[in-house]
């Protein structure tokens, strides 16, 4: 029972005008994942709405990052991983054999826990994605880079050092650069794996502010250790424990009035 959450409940977001029907962007159905003999995900089913922020919380090792990496098939890179179940993004099954992985990753971008800018200039970092997609015209690239850096709230700080090495930026700036790099290809979904865990509170605040803005254009899925962060930025939250999705619902309700006892224990700090 613990894995099955009413899909209908997740889709209704209370607003001042009453509940509205949200469009599902990512649909996860009975997904299980084995890494060798160990089962890392057990029968996870839920759905994420378009242009909303969905957060996953839970103790270490509960499978949140693994679930996230399923969404852009980064788990394909690990040998011995086996997945069952169904994941649909924007209506298409992403594990369909006919599906090209690189096409998927154009639509689903990822920002990693530890910022990993390429050892190139700031400009070249952000232009990397568009270049892969075939954009070669210099002025087109400049426009895309400026737009992405502004979207990541980094443009003012780097506009006169676009040709300098990206490794010279501070930690918070590097992470925002990675966000700019991810949105430069204009994905539909943006996955963020604990994006602020390596940053100080001020940089974290800046990125949280950024997320609230990006929500208007992208569907965001964020994995976080920080419950307060999940409470601050997300519209929906899911609590995972030992590979199972224990509870999923509107953030305010999950934090003030959790249905499951395990959720309540975790939120009040009795474990985890």
């Amino acid at each position, binding site marked *: 029972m613990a894995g099955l959450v009413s899909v209908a409940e997740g889709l209704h977001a209370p607003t001042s005008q009453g509940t509205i029907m949200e469009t599902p962007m990512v649909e996860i159905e009975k997904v299980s994942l084995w890494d060798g003999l160990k089962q890392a995900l057990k029968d996870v089913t839920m759905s994420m709405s378009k242009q909303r922020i969905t957060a996953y919380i839970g103790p270490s090792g509960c499978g949140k990052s693994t679930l996230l990496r399923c969404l852009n098939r980064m788990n394909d890179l690990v040998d011995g991983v086996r997945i069952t179940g169904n994941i649909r993004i924007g209506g298409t099954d992403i594990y369909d054999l006919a599906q090209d992985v690189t096409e998927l990753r154009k639509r689903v971008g990822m920002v*990693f826990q530890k910022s*990993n800018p390429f050892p190139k200039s700031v400009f070249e970092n952000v232009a*990397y994605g568009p270049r892969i997609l075939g954009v070669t015209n210099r002025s087109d690239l400049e426009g895309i880079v400026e737009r992405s850096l502004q979207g990541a709230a980094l443009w003012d700080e780097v506009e006169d050092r676009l040709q300098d090495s990206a490794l010279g930026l501070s930690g918070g700036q590097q992470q925002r650069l990675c966000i700019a790099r991810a949105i430069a290809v204009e994905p539909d979904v943006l996955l963020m794996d604990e994006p602020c865990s390596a940053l100080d509170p001020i940089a974290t605040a800046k990125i949280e502010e950024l997320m609230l803005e990006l929500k208007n254009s992208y569907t965001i899925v964020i994995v976080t250790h920080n419950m307060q962060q999940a409470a601050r930025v997300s519209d929906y939250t899911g609590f995972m424990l030992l590979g199972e999705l224990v509870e999923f619902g509107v953030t305010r309700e999950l934090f003030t009035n959790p249905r499951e006892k395990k959720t309540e224990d975790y939120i009040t700090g009795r474990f985890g």
Partner: protein
Amino acid sequence: MRLQNRGIWSTGEPFIWLTGGALTMALLLVAGLIGLIFYNGMGFFWPKSVARVTFTDGAVMTGQIVEREPLPEKPGQFRIKLKVANRDLYGADFQWVDEARIARREYPPDVAVIERTEWGLLIGTIKDVRDGGRAIAVGGAAGWAEVQKRLAESERVRRQIRRIEKAEIGAINARQEGVRLKLKGLGLRGITSGPQVEALQAQLGPLQDEYQRQAARLADLRKTQSITVVVAGDGGKEKELPLAQVVSVQFPNSMGLVAKTADYVGNVWSFIADDPREANTEGGVFPAIFGTVLMVLIMSIVVTPLGVLAAFYLREYAKQGAFVSAVRIAVNNLAGVPSIVFGVFGVGFFIYFVGGSIDRIFYPEALPTPTFGTGGILWASLTLSLLTVPVVIVATEEGLAAIPGGMREASLALSATKLETTLRVVLPAVMPSILTGLILAMARAAGEVAPLMITGVVKLAPTLPIDGQWPFLHLERKFMHLGFHIYDVGFQSPNVDAARPMVFATTLLLLLIVVFLNLFAIATRNRLRRKYATSAV
């Protein structure tokens, strides 16, 4: 709580001194070796004064003092080694003389040191200058004036004769050989008469006429070389030396510091730029420099893609397991194989098998004279690239391992394929490590001589591997090499005493070339490291 003093051993100070001392000793040894080579090598070019010693019995000996050592049987007494040169007059270049026998030592200003194209140096005084047997200037001063007037012209004529012989007659010979080979090729296919054969044979006539014309030019030029200089040596011996054989004339006893410095620079330049003479004991080492640098370049061009691709496959693309580990162990062991074994492999595989096959398929008309089926610069470079490929593979693999996996993930998450990730992200980031591998490969290859001796290096190569005739780069030609030159000059030459200073000079030159190649690669690597600041290798 009082900290107990457990002695200096606990602070580790003795080990700091030990390691520092060992490092200092190593640096001193290296500096000492380089200093010794530098001193002996650079001293070779300084023009030495000529002493005329008169013995107690009245005999006279003229020569340059090159060494002084204590007599073993009589302590406190010394003997000196005089370079008397004039091998064709006295028989031996060097003479040991007990200082006790010397009555008087002078440095006459009119003694000339003449560098010749044959028989080494000539030391003596100019007596007179003759033209076809008839004296045109008599006495030291007048003779020197006459020689000075005509030396430049004589040098010009000598260079012109060599140019006609090498370039023009050489080209005619090459074309004649080409016609002969084409005829033989037709003959192998059974065509011994007909329009093709006649067309080819028709070419031979004009070529022969051209040859006669050039030969006549040579004869004319040689007729103008009728001037001779008569030089007097010790003991009344005289030598009539054709001016055509004179390379330079100096009076070292009357040269000031400025003149000697100018001469020094000139000697260094001719060492680097001229061809060797007298079985490599005189003249310059330019062909050896050229051969060494060209061989290292070809080897680098071959070993870099080979090693880098192998390292990429082992680290990025192959499934890690028993097979890949076995390959890695084999590669590391390859670095320990003695270099002569690589030479033998090069002879067996490259020269006999591959070269022999190339000859049979593409050059059958030249057989039994081998074209590629014998040693050459291509096979030598390929053998050395096999020798150094493990070094490049290991260095590149270390660099690849140092690249954080997050970078590859980031690239893949941006929808790049694995190949795009490798080319656009990994390859630029691993360049410094590749260059490290290349530096180590060049350092190892520049010093190896054993495998080269059997795969294409010769004592004296008639031509350079690059010249003006199509296809400009002749990979099948044999070449000269500085390392082999050192061995040949130092241990295989007929006149080891005369050759010894040259060995030092050549060693110094080889060291300098390797140092410059390495400095260039290191500078490139530092520039890349600043740009792609990730790898520590």
